[in-house]
């Protein structure tokens, strides 16, 4: 049981081809001989980059919840809607499954993601050796579900486009939607920058 790094080998991040790092004729920085992708044994500055994106995502999540993600006006009466308010509206409509989907995608997933990536980064930095398999699974889950948070941004975009029925009803997007979208993108970049192989090193 040896890792590629321990054998002086590196796997191409795109095509998976294994290259010997001491090989002659390799460019600096090394490039995959078959698909020309940049090779690195571990993602460069993985922990720092991941922290930076995570903090950016956390900062963007604050205005995302404070400012309205959209304004609903019915017969000229304009109402601001926050993310949390939108979930309450769905509960009032008794659409419990959909309320649950939105709640999970826009509240549970982002918050869990901040804790999960933060925990993984701290565990890597403190060279914690236990529960590596569980932490890899946590990483996999974080990577998989993170993008689903974008659902709220798409809901706002669709409602804003669709509900333009003159004076009767109108929906306009709010700055909270931009902040929320930025938060989701930043945390996705945080998970992408995090190299899960560091958990096992």
């Amino acid at each position, binding site marked *: 049981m040896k890792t*590629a790094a321990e*054998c002086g080998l590196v796997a191409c991040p795109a*095509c998976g081809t294994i290259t010997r790092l001491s090989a002659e004729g390799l460019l600096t920085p090394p490039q995959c001989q078959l*698909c*020309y992708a940049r090779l690195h044994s571990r993602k460069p500055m993985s922990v720092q980059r991941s922290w930076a994106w995570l903090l950016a995502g956390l900062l963007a999540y604050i205005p995302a919840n404070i400012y309205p993600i959209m304004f609903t006006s019915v017969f000229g009466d304009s109402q601001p809607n926050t993310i949390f308010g939108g979930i309450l509206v769905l509960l009032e409509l008794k659409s419990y499954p959909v309320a649950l989907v939105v709640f999970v995608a826009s509240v549970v997933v982002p918050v869990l993601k901040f804790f999960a990536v933060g925990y993984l980064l701290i565990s890597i930095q403190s060279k914690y050796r236990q529960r590596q398999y569980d932490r890899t699974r946590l990483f996999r889950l974080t990577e998989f579900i993170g993008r689903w948070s974008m659902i709220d941004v798409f809901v706002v975009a669709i409602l804003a486009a669709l509900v333009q029925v003159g004076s009767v009803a109108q929906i306009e997007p709010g700055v909270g*939607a931009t902040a929320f979208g930025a938060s989701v993108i930043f945390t996705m970049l945080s998970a992408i920058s995090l190299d899960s192989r560091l958990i096992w090193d």
Partner: protein
Amino acid sequence: MNDSEHPPTARTRVDTLLLSLVACHECDLLHEKHDLPVGAVARCIRCNAFLYARKYNSIDRTLAVSVAALIMFVVANSFPFLAISVSGNTQSISIISAVFALSDEGMWLLGLLCFGFIILIPLLRVVGLLYILLPLRAGKRLPGIELVFRGIVSLSPWSMMEIYLLGAIVALVKLASMANIILGLSFWAFAVLNILAAVAAQMVDNHTLWEFISHSRGGRLAILSARDNGPVDRGVS
């Protein structure tokens, strides 16, 4: 490999590629590649991550599904997506309307990102796959295949069509009590497109796709081994 015939000092570039090995992309553990039976999946023995798989007629079926997906993509973007009617007023949108709705309100950055996530990136991935596979199937190799392959791999987390579809359903539930909802032709085409994308993702993995590309005639592997005239350890192939 016989080292007396090929002393280490004369190691060629191809020899440095260890094609019979695979490293887990999640924990870096090295594994020897084996010839899998059809339908089998190889996983990392340490972290259980997906390593590679062998599917029945993977490339041809992916090609067929990709052509179907491209047609569905054109249909989904050519007709009305959703419409509502409230007290006699009807408003109809296409998929791209959501992008304009954001940019018209001054949120052009978010609009641009939505355009990328639901239209441009999914389209680039399908067209890229066809750009690689269609000519290779006919024995031709178009330039820049490596770049296109790397693009398909790195863009995959940013293709969000399935999330947009779920977003549309959530939006409809919110509106269902106050307006009449009409699902357009594009809505169904977009739903089918999502199914096709999921099927394609099941049929081929990056590893299989790359093996097909690199082992095809005129590929990097063939070029390197012809130039170096050295032995190529082709692993499972």
